[in-house]
């Protein structure tokens, strides 16, 4: 939310949605190497030269995680509404209509059923391109429904987070989505179904401070910015330079806040592994101990 504009300036995203084909060549936003666009896409949007993980479109994310042909979308039954009549330099309603048309979806998230290396999951992928992946009532509702349906259908939940935080154009109602998503996750906890979060660049504000950090396991992508308050806000508050690597995935790993930094190419295998292990444990029954302990 607060960071939307800052991110845009710091890390220009390319028009890499399927709807907007860009040029043949693109420049790595970290090392500036010229990359053949098809190669970059084939390499899961990871720079061949320096390993930098570019932001990834939702469709490509779903394709890389779900077993081929297994994804079945659950989203789209709810659409956002401008409950406050919010107007800044442009009405929120107009902003929404424009971005909906561009994205081809009602809001900043896609959820659905999938298999990940055969593991039954509900998969939720946030879309940073859609108003900075901000969480309003629809994002909250989609997550709540996905968690509830995962519970009913005996699926783990995999959450790929990418968000500037709560959507300020929906006021306190967007703030309340932090609590709404949190209470809905109980549908998984009470059935001992794993909830695994993947924090991608960037995950910030009210999203980091609610469902995105409540996973049984939290993975992050290399160099992803993950924070509550954004670097600019902190800098303005303390009027000091920030330490190198501050609020990046590797920094948070050292601080003990995430389980691991996982390169994109290994993510699917890693997700399947932890989900498989946790589900096997749950199936063995409460308090079951390995033999010979």
């Amino acid at each position, binding site marked *: *939310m*607060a960071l*939307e*504009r800052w991110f845009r300036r710091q890390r220009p995203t390319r028009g890499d949605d399927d709807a907007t084909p860009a040029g043949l060549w693109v420049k790595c936003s970290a090392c500036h190497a010229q990359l053949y666009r098809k190669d970059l896409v084939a390499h899961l949007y990871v720079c061949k030269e320096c390993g930098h993980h570019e932001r990834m479109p939702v469709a490509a994310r779903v394709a890389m995680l779900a077993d081929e042909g297994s994804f079945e979308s659950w989203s*789209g*039954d*709810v*659409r*956002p*509404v401008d*409950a*406050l009549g*919010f*107007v*800044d*330099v442009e009405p929120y309603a107009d902003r929404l209509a424009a971005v909906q048309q561009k994205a081809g979806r009602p809001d900043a998230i896609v959820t659905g059923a999938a298999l990940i290396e055969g593991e039954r999951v509900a998969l939720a992928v946030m879309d940073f391109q859609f108003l900075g992946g901000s969480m309003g*009532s*629809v994002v*909250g*509702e989609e997550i709540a429904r996905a968690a509830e349906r995962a519970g009913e259908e005996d699926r783990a939940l995999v959450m790929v987070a990418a968000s500037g935080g*709560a*959507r*300020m*154009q*929906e*006021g*306190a*109602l*967007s*703030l*309340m*989505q*932090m*609590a*709404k998503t*949190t*209470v*809905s*996750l*109980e549908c998984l906890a009470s059935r001992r179904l794993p909830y695994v979060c993947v924090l991608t660049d960037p995950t910030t*504000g*009210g999203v*980091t*401070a*609610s469902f*995105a*950090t*409540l996973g049984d396991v939290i993975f992050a992508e290399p160099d992803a910015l*993950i924070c*509550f*308050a954004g670097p600019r806000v*902190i800098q303005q*508050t*303390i009027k*000091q330079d920030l*330490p190198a690597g*501050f*609020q990046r995935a590797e920094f948070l790993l050292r*601080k003990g*806040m995430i389980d691991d930094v996982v390169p994109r190419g290994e993510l699917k295998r890693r997700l399947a592994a932890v989900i498989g292990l946790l589900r096997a444990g749950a199936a063995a029954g409460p308090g079951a101990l390995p033999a010979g302990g």
Partner: protein
Amino acid sequence: MALPFEKPIEDLESKIREMQAYADEQQVDLVEEISLLEQRLERLKRETFAHLTRWQRVLVARAPGRPTALDHVGAFVDDFVELHGDRALGDDPALVAGLGRVDGAGVVVLAQQKGRDTKENIYRNFGMAHPSGYRKAMRMMEMADKFGLAVVALIDTPGAYPGIAAEEQGQAWVIAESIRRMSRLRVPAVAVVVGEGGSGGALAIGVANRVLILENAVYSVISPESCAAIRWRDAGEAPRAAEALKLTSADLLEQGVVDEVVAEPLGGAHKDPAAAVAATAAAVRAALASLRGLGAHEIVRSRAERFRHMGRVLADSA
């Protein structure tokens, strides 16, 4: 230190005082004149406060002299015992926790405390808690659950502190965990926004069965200043941002974010702190009483339900 829109009120008040002094000094009878002015003052206050803009409400919510969270606690909690520390990192004075009694029944109190003066404000970090504060709150929620004590949370914070150590210690993580911990309480919880409800840092102790707000308090996803800096690229547009955010008690009641608005004395809580804390005390007592006798299951279920239905969406036939 009058707020800008309070100037005409203050002027009239000082005029009445002058007349009174003159009458006493000169031994003249101005009773009728003074009484007329007092009536005019009453009307002026009523008019002014009935038509405050949202930004003016923000100013009242932050006004110097407004009762702090602990001032409210003092009015309805008997035998208050403050308990310090999160048993891991330290003690955060921005979030005060303790035990006490309300109408004879034990409660756990959580209070986001701003300073009453500059010195205390610095000590309290202007009511902006660090992760340690939220860890302390969670420790106290654990205690409330174990001993069957209701939780009363008083919210008054610009937000969780945005600093280097706070981020390193997982500010986002503790807020998320605190929201979850509070949503799991098997005991009744009542939250009151008494001043500023600043975003996630406020919600962390706001996942209650009953959420109250004082008439001139505000509760928002972002401060008007930050919102203005982002949306208008000018923090000076905060008054317009406040309008757009719909963050007043009346707005929040309409949105279903709060259950009840606690009326403040005419002129705002800072003009009559004693009356303000008495009104809060009565409202908290009534809220606690309304939750008495509910079973643990019902307490958890109805609280989860309350928050599960937050928000507005357009639903396709499904």
